[in-house]
């Protein structure tokens, strides 16, 4: 960003963009596993309960 002329982006908007970027990365980082689980839940016809979907241990 340093080589860009200063009139294109002000320091505040640069800072804002960095914040938005890091926030979206955090959301994607922690939201990915719930998203994969949601896909599995939504595409299974009998809608299993959350515990059986979450538990990696074999159900008896």
């Amino acid at each position, binding site marked *: 960003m340093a080589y860009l002329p200063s009139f294109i982006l002000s320091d505040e908007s640069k800072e804002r963009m960095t914040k938005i970027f890091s926030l979206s*990365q955090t959301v*994607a980082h922690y939201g*990915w596993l719930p998203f*994969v689980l949601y896909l*599995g839940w939504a595409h299974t016809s009998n809608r299993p309960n959350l515990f059986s979907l979450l*538990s990696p241990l074999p159900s008896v």
Partner: protein
Amino acid sequence: MIEYMEQVLRSFELCTGWSRDNSYENITATSENLLNFDVPAGLKCQVSNKSTPNTYSTFELSNNKLINGSLAYLYTNCKGLENYISNSRDIQLQDASETYRQIRPLYRHRDSKKEFEPSSLWYGRMYYPTSTLEAMVAKRLSPETQFVAKCLSSLAHTSVLTLYWQKDSGQNCQEWIASSNEGLVGYRVLHNFIGSQSKLNSSLYNNSSLSIGGELWFGLMNTSPACSTTLRYCTHSANTGKPLTLTLSWNPLFGHVSSTYSVKASSGATISSKYDFNLYSIESNLSFGCDLWRSGNKKSKLKAHEDLSEAASTRNSKYAEDSPMFYHLMAGSLNSQKLLDDLNVTFASSLHKINKERSIIQKFENSLIDANFTSVWRLSTSLRDKNLKVLWEGKYKGFLISAGTELTNGPLDLPSNLVEEPKSASFFRPSKFGVQLQYSM
């Protein structure tokens, strides 16, 4: 030992008709599996579960100085995938272990694309306590194309995103790769030469496969290029039906030449050797590796046969399209069977020879499936690195266990090219030791 999630991914590829071996990335997979196998470090336990027909999960705990863990979930909308995945009790050991890769001749790719449905796979794994996320999306878009996105996300360190666009037409497999790490872009290609009748033994039968591949890489940030090229030849011994693979790799920039020879010497033994040579530094290395498989006793074999009857039928249906895999007959023509019938009278003796050779190879292949292997010893050594790797993998009461150690002669904290020749001969000492337990339902 292949991890459960890796098995699910490979089954996804198998189910959707994607050939894993027809890729430049895996062109030297056989020798890599036999020489550079991973030895577990510390104690590692994995429990895996198929919670629904579409979702799979794995929980892992490992104790290597620190207690680490990871939790992985996978979702796929591929239909019929559950038929391809066995739990740790029913899986055949040769399917659960990284070993000799049987290269299928080219014509097979055409058959596997008859029924195609676009499908996708979503995977995520979170490591604790570092909170590093490993994510992957694989999409089969058409019978010939696959898109893969892999991401390693870390809030403390730099994250890496890598995108793969792969196109496999059977004869050619091309990959375009872009990675956020150093702005790396790459292109990989593998070309299979269409086989014709064998010229050596005057038979129409030919199951060999000759492939050539290359890769080009360029780092946009550091403007550094890289490239390599490899030739692979796979065939079966005509008399004994034993498969063998030869590869020759060359890296023009670093002047590195590497040749490998791997052979399944019997149904219970695989041998591989590799010779590395650098044209610029005149340094060389010779590596050997072998797998020794042990079958279970007859009683357990019979029991296993009963237990595995269902799994075997699934497996047979899985490889139904593979059943004529070894005759790579007149690969250029689609109606080869009709042509064969017409030629039946004219070339009766040659056709008789085809059946004979094919039956020898299929007999050897069947002996591998029927062997009911229960354990395997894997050894690998390298003359230059002066190390010896020993790994035992086996099945015990539904658990897949792998235990191994790496013995080395040099200082542990230096890479092998910086190690000075030891002045006095010292004994090998273990630099790594570990046990891994896997259980899946």
